[in-house]
């Protein structure tokens, strides 16, 4: 178990390292950074001085090493726009994105699993059929279009829910959160549902498929033959088997949800990382872009690691293989 964990950690480290190379090459080598960073009407002496101060005259591997040491110290340069360390600019926006993503994941679990169970247990019912049809829409309609429609209906036409910003926030651990105030919560409703729709559809379908697969299985029939209540058969025997794929997918989707909150945040003017990165790309705020990419990589790697660990906890068969 511990050697397995160690191996996974080393793997994760290599993934991050590989990503630093890709990000470095992507941002520093492809396209000439000098053109981006140095004013076009600077004279030759100014150019040479700027190149030296940015370290661009050094060999590429030295440039990479100093970039890497910057990454290790959390120093990814200063944002051109905010004139603050890029990492700090990003981290300031992280809570807003996080609370939106967590809300979205909670919605997909709390609605998706019961709905999927229902659809799996009553596959021919009218409700199950509508759920299945709805989930296809949730998959295939573009998120920005659904977001716009939600704003049209619930904000513009009906005027029930706000469509922009975080609303009132309150501090907890020195960070501002929307979910702590009523106004903030109301502001979260539309964007978090918009962000959740894809995962929700996924969880409904996964759960339903899991139930359909488990119900005719021998172990369910044997559980019934023991005289267990339907509650226990579904709640324990079926659920425990469904949780494995659901947790895996949810875990992997959590990182994707954060990465894709870009769209939702832009539509609902939610001041999170996603909106920041779009703004930064449009003004070529290079350090912020790099910091964002590195953060997302770290996030994916960490989440994958956690999912693997959870998987081991949930599935005894995996546990044994890893011991051996």
């Amino acid at each position, binding site marked *: 178990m511990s050697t397995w964990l160690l191996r996974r950690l080393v793997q994760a480290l290599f993934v991050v390292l590989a990503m630093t190379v890709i990000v470095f090459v992507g941002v520093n080598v492809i396209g000439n950074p000098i053109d981006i960073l140095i004013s076009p009407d600077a004279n030759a002496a100014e150019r040479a001085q700027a190149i030296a101060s940015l370290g661009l005259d050094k060999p590429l591997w030295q440039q990479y090493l100093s970039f890497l040491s910057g990454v290790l110290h959390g120093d990814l340069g200063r944002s051109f726009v905010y004139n603050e360390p890029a990492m700090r600019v990003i981290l300031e926006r992280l809570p807003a994105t996080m609370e939106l993503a967590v809300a979205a994941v909670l919605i997909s679990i709390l609605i998706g699993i019961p709905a999927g169970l229902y659809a799996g247990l009553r596959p021919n019912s009218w409700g199950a059929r509508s759920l299945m049809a709805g989930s296809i829409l949730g998959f295939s309609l573009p998120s920005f279009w659904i977001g716009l429609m939600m704003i049209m209906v619930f904000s513009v036409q009906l005027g029930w829910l706000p469509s922009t910003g975080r609303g009132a926030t309150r501090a907890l651990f020195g960070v501002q959160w929307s979910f702590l105030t009523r106004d903030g919560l109301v502001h979260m409703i539309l964007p978090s549902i918009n962000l959740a729709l894809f995962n929700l559809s996924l969880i409904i379908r996964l759960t339903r498929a899991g139930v359909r697969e488990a119900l005719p299985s021998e*172990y369910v*029939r044997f559980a019934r033959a023991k005289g*267990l209540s339907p509650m226990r058969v579904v709640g324990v025997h079926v659920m425990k088997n469904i949780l494995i794929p659901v947790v895996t997918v949810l875990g992997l989707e959590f990182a994707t949800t954060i990465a894709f909150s870009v769209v939702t945040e832009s539509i609902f003017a939610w001041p999170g990382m996603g909106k920041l990165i779009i703004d930064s790309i449009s003004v070529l705020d290079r350090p912020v872009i790099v910091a964002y990419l590195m953060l997302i990589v770290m996030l994916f790697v960490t989440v994958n690691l956690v999912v693997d660990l959870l998987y081991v906890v949930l599935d*005894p*068969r995996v546990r*044994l293989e890893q011991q051996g």
Partner: protein
Amino acid sequence: MSVPALEVRGLSTHFSSRAGVVRAVDDVSFTVQRGEVMGLVGESGSGKSVTGFSLLGLVDEPGRVVAGQILLEGRDIAKLSDGEMRRLRGRHIAMVFQDPMMTLNPVLRVDTQMIEAVQAHEPVSRAVARARARDALGLVGISSPEERLSAYPHQFSGGMRQRVAIAIALLHRPALIVADEPTTALDVTIQAQILSEMQDLCTRFGTALVWITHDLSVIAGLADHIAVMYAGRIVEKGTVDQVLDNPLHPYTQGLIGSVPSRTPRGERLRGIPGMTPNVLNLPVGCAFRTRCGRADAQCEEDPPEFAAEPGHAHRCFHPVAELVA
């Protein structure tokens, strides 16, 4: 004689599909006494499993028990509500399934699966239920049961898993256990071992055993009675000696002929010519007609049950041997 552990009368279970109605079990009747073993024999697809599921009320849509009585210790359980049936299952009537790799839930520990089986029927504490589970494991020959309880099913061999399933079936000392080909997936030596151990236990607890198999040789030595099933019907039934020594139905005779140990040395194994008929399109009259060498015009009618001698019955117009009753 006292009330039999199980008496089945005219049991019919049908599956309705778009293509038509499958009479998987059709007018089946048999009796099993306390502590006795009845072998239910027949080719794959003849309706043995569906008969077993019908006894436990485990037939799922699109199947349905459409007729018949199932008297468990004299009480008809065929028409019980779902809840009443559930309280009976696992307690008074238990089942062991064919594939030990699939019957235990792979993600739950063995103790969880045994404790829940105890607690489903008796309001005892977890500790008491666990002790019961441990004793049951010991009973079926699992060594160091205390440690094995905390294991997961995949940590057991196939034979051991089936023993766990048998231990679960025995937890409440049921009146009847239906064993649906429980050793088919196992090694031949383990098969014989498990079968004889199970027979011992059932005799000890007075539990009646319905042992389903497609292989006559498996139960020839251990069963008290045999019922031969073909296309949803019992075509012959009697004591082991009656059926094996004096098979009356041509199908039974074919089955016995295809058992290797009974074939004289040098003689080629005689199979039963032809194939199991399509269940959706059974021949009118005797379903065995298309494969039977003795068939004639009369066989286009439904053969009723004939009693050849006390306890020995068959459904054939032209039995292989005439017995004087």
